[in-house]
């Protein structure tokens, strides 16, 4: 038995058989040429198999992630149907290359050709051709990527890296949990795991060495951040108890899915969701979110070699907006830099990335990228008029006025081009820097709404890097300074008559919820997997109760004293409810 402590990346517990996910090895250097005829026949078979595979996958993808994602796949069938490309491959085979080498060389040269064209939209085809190359080689070399869809019941998928694309392809019902060697709480994969409700422990160094051979069982506690390889009977018993508690909790939450959010007084409250993809937007819709409070668009830009263009963004934003025709969808403009690297932008490393060249600072300097995003958003807003734009990391009034001027220019251009757009779109800001908190009354004159980003706000107010595990005790939104900042922003928003929402992780914390209600927050926005628990929590609080709790802790001097008091009150209320 081996117990490993690592990052609690997605809550929940699971026990199962280990299924190892490995990136396929596509090194064909050692393969032997089997003659022209045979190699060409192999190529033909591979192309046929490719078309069948993609047709199936496209149908599945359309059902899971929408038409746009499926079209990317069917486009690959058109590409492989290019007789010129096949002829080139056959010519190389004629010169003594294996089918693998021919496929690799020809697709790579096409990929480079597309990567260098001026048209932004065409440039994106490079990524598709890279994908096509990988699939064709896998078929030729009979390299089986672990057939994710056929993973059996009670499995725990373990891998060096588990990218979001892999996690979305898993048969969720059969998966107990996930473990990965690399990645952290905010990695793309972790966000997807939380969205799908799969427990994940990541950052488990040395994991793959432990499980290289034979059959293993593993316990994964994504709430605590713990994995136990080859657990003994005691550990399993303890696990079963924990799993029971977790399951009970989950099933008691089921009744809070897909219904309206109402507080203890019976007053309707707005509870929206934070997402970064169409797949998550679907989950949020299913759980009954009142629209999207934060669409993190940077995830459209990560994990790829070229930037998404206006058209691609337009389609994604439109698809998400169409899921919520009667509520708001707040799209945050590109928030890159800091911990989010974008290979396609090739930004230089900085000594202090969180205090560096990122988010709105980067966008205002790169108006070509920023305009294409603004145009895509303005166009997507035309259909339902339900989209709002939100700027990240604002520290000064000029940032809002500059962005607004650029937005105005985009609107004028779109009108001239006769493209439908939403001229009345609202432009708001994230309040996540101390500067924005202190200037809230001034910023409120230019911003149509505020959204509090507690993750960054906490680290900036407390000067404590949120990724530094030695500072974990400092980095709390319950620090009195952070609570005061949150209350001030909300009060300022009320005074200036602009709505204030909160879209940080803290909004899902049962101890924070009554405080936010008391401060007068207009809208909660949490991850799709937290919607039900937050809805339940809100339903238990009457405004007078929340107010008196907020008054009790208002002058508490330390994080410790605030949390201790909130915890005690909440525990007592739970006990009372259980008795009742």
């Amino acid at each position, binding site marked *: 038995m081996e117990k490993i402590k690592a990052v609690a990346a997605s809550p929940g517990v699971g026990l199962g058989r280990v299924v190892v996910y490995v990136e396929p090895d596509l090194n064909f250097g050692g393969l032997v040429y089997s003659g022209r005829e045979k190699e060409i026949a192999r190529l033909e078979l591979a192309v046929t198999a490719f078309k069948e595979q993609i047709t199936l996958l496209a149908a599945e993808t359309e059902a899971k992630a929408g038409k746009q994602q499926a079209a990317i796949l069917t486009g690959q069938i058109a*590409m492989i149907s290019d*007789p010129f490309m096949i002829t080139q491959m056959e010519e190389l085979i004629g010169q003594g290359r294996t089918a693998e080498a021919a496929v690799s060389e020809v697709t790579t040269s*096409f990929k480079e050709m597309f990567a260098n064209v001026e048209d932004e939209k065409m440039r994106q085809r490079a990524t598709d051709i890279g994908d096509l190359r990988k699939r064709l080689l896998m078929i030729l070399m009979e390299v089986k990527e672990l057939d994710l869809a056929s993973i059996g019941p009670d499995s725990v998928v373990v891998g060096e890296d588990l990218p979001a694309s892999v996690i979305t392809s898993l048969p969720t019902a059969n998966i107990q949990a996930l473990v990965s060697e690399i990645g952290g709480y905010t990695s793309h994969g972790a966000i997807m795991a939380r969205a799908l409700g799969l427990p994940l422990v990541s950052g488990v160094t040395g994991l793959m060495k432990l499980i290289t051979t034979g059959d293993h069982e593993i316990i994964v506690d994504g709430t605590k951040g713990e994995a136990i390889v080859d657990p003994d009977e005691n550990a399993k018993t303890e696990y079963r108890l924990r799993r029971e508690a977790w399951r009970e909790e989950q099933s008691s939450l089921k009744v809070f899915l897909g219904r309206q959010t109402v507080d203890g007084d019976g007053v309707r409250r707005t509870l929206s969701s934070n997402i970064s993809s169409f797949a998550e937007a679907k989950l949020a819709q299913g759980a009954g979110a009142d629209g999207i409070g934060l669409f993190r668009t940077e995830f459209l830009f990560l994990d790829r070699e070229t930037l998404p263009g206006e058209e691609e963004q337009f389609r994604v934003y439109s698809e998400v907006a169409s899921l919520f025709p009667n509520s708001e969808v707040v799209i945050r403009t590109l928030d890159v830099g800091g911990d989010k690297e974008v290979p396609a932008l090739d930004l230089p490393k900085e000594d202090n990335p969180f205090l560096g060249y990122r988010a709105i600072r980067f966008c205002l300097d790169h108006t070509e990228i920023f305009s294409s995003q603004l145009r895509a958003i303005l166009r997507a807003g035309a259909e339902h008029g339900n989209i709002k734009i939100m700027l990240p990391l604002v520290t000064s009034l000029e940032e809002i006025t500059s962005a607004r001027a650029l937005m105005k220019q985009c609107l004028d251009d779109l009108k001239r081009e006769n493209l439908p757009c939403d001229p009345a779109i609202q432009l708001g800001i994230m309040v996540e820097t101390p500067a924005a908190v202190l200037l809230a009354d001034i910023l409120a004159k230019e911003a149509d709404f505020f959204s509090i980003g507690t993750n960054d706000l906490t680290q900036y107010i407390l000067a404590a890097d949120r990724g530094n595990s030695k500072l974990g005790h400092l980095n709390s939104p319950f620090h009195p300074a952070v609570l005061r900042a949150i209350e001030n922003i909300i009060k300022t928003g009320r005074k200036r008559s602009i709505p204030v929402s909160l879209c940080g992780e803290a909004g899902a914390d049962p101890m924070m919820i009554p405080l936010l209600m008391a401060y007068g927050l207009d809208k909660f926005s949490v991850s799709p997997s937290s919607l039900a628990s937050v809805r339940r929590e809100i339903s238990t609080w009457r405004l007078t109760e929340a107010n008196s709790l907020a008054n009790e802790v208002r002058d508490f001097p330390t994080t410790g004293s605030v949390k201790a008091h909130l915890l005690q009150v909440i525990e007592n209320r739970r006990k009372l409810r259980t008795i009742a």
Partner: protein
Amino acid sequence: MLTENVTALNETGVHMRPAQILVTKLAPLDATVTVKHDGKSVNAKSIMMLMAACIKKGHDLEVVCEGPDEAKAMGLMEDFFKGVMDEE
């Protein structure tokens, strides 16, 4: 050899589906078909080359067809750039 100057009328440029339709129709013809645009020439019997040429509405192009089926090929090319196959 036939040479024609045509203007691309395809509403949103050359797309994958219409390119695939064109190339399928050109494939059985005994003729080389070249599109010259912006100083580059591309083989029109290739979906990928057609797309990578980034042809947009309003671009002026030179189409060259050569071989026994050149007239038929030219007819298809003219239809293509009129946007006829965009609808199919």
